[in-house]
């Protein structure tokens, strides 16, 4: 498990990005729930940590795709593929993330870069 940040340091409505590869973001919803999903929008290279958090949904800051934080499912286009979700554990006031072992759904430009192909 990866320690993310202290719960007390992440106010409701805020997001905290873990700069791992690929990056993961922890969201603290207005209702007090904590979720972790892949930070990169599956449509194009954008950081969901910069997005619009509303309820259990985050809207990509660029093209307004929406993802369900609980399931990673796409709630609104242009994205078509879900983001990975990661298990979150809060222990002694610390948020930990257990990374998913599934393959991430990275956008075409990032996937091409990781594969060493043309950008």
């Amino acid at each position, binding site marked *: 498990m990866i320690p993310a940040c202290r719960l007390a340091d992440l106010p409701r409505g805020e997001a905290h990005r873990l700069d791992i590869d690929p990056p993961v973001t922890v969201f603290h919803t207005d209702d007090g729930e904590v979720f972790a999903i892949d930070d990169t929008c599956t449509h194009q290279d*954008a*950081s969901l*940590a*910069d*997005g*619009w958090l509303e309820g259990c949904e985050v809207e990509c*800051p*660029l*093209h*307004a795709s929406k993802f369900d934080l609980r399931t990673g499912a*796409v709630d*609104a*286009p*242009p994205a*078509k593929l879900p983001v990975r979700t990661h298990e979150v554990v809060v222990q002694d006031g610390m948020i930990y993330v257990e990374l998913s072992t599934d393959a991430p759904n990275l956008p*075409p*430009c990032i996937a091409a870069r990781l594969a060493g192909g043309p950008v």
Partner: protein
Amino acid sequence: MRTVAVVGASLAGLSAARSLRSQGFDGQLVVIGEEPHRPYDRPPLSKEFLAGKIGEADLALEQDGEDLAAEWLFDTRATGLDRERRAVRLADGREVRADGIVIATGAAARTLPGADGLAGVHTLRTLDDARALRDDLALGGRLVVIGGGFIGAEVASTAYALGLDVTIVEAAQTPLAGPLGEAMGRIVSALHEDHGVRLLCGVGVKGLSGETRVSAVLLDDGRVVPADTVVVGVGARPCVEWLEGSGVALDDGVKCGADGHTSLAGVVAVGDCASWYDPRVGVHRRVEHWTGARERPDAAVATLLSWGAAEPGVLRPPYFWSDQYGVKVQFAGHAAGADSVTIEEGTPEDRDVLAVYRRAGRPAAVLGMNRPRLFTRWRKQLAAPPS
């Protein structure tokens, strides 16, 4: 309501069909699309698709396996609406009868008078337009873009990256002054000259020259700009001719209330063809943005299914984005009517500004260049009800 016809199969039409199903409509659903293609995403047509970075499959708006239990009529143009028979007439002589009708016929690119029949002259609105332009850009050479709006600017940016020699001709003194205001229009359009793309402002186009293929653009002041390819990006007109005489009130598009209702009961309109009343600014206006076509159908469908009894929700301020020369330009709100614009972060020289437009001291709009995080915060604030 047992049958609903959605006229238009792009983002607004697809979103309406999705909203109908998600709001519990389980009757017969017919979606009529003029183009032969399944719903596809248009914003990449001037950017990644035109650049060859993504293909046609990447443009699909439907998810794999998505099934709305709809009857899709593609390659089918609507030619009329019969209010008595509650029917949509089709170009092939058929008609679709429906209790409820969603008008989502979009807009078409305006053209330049006299440009017909000359090879190498393009507009950009549809997938077929984008394919044809992509083929011509692959020839290289000199591109002249007529119109310095967002489509023109994005095509110029893409063509520049492909190695073409690019000139933009803009009739106004400042490109984008309409949507962004003079000061910010100047800053955003300065991206062109940063990259060696020529920007000729304050001059109109007299005509095009060429025998079978375009060879030059002739300007009002007598200048001749040589061209191998020309893109005309001078705006769009709503596709509502088919509604003339139908009883649906038209005024620069379909005139709608703040909940999407038209002058006919059981008929709503969404997307680029629809001119909704905007209570924030007190006027009807067409919002030709992707996000409007995505968000508003939900409200319009609620109106349709409740026969107008649904309480209209509060719409978010209009939002759009543009990608030019690697800079992400984002805008939300209304620039018209703002009495001040201040740069809150960044500097114009670095093309990384966050600017806030205010009217009587209250934020009315926000512009971001490469500032997605801060932009989203301001966008949320703009959408919050006045405190």
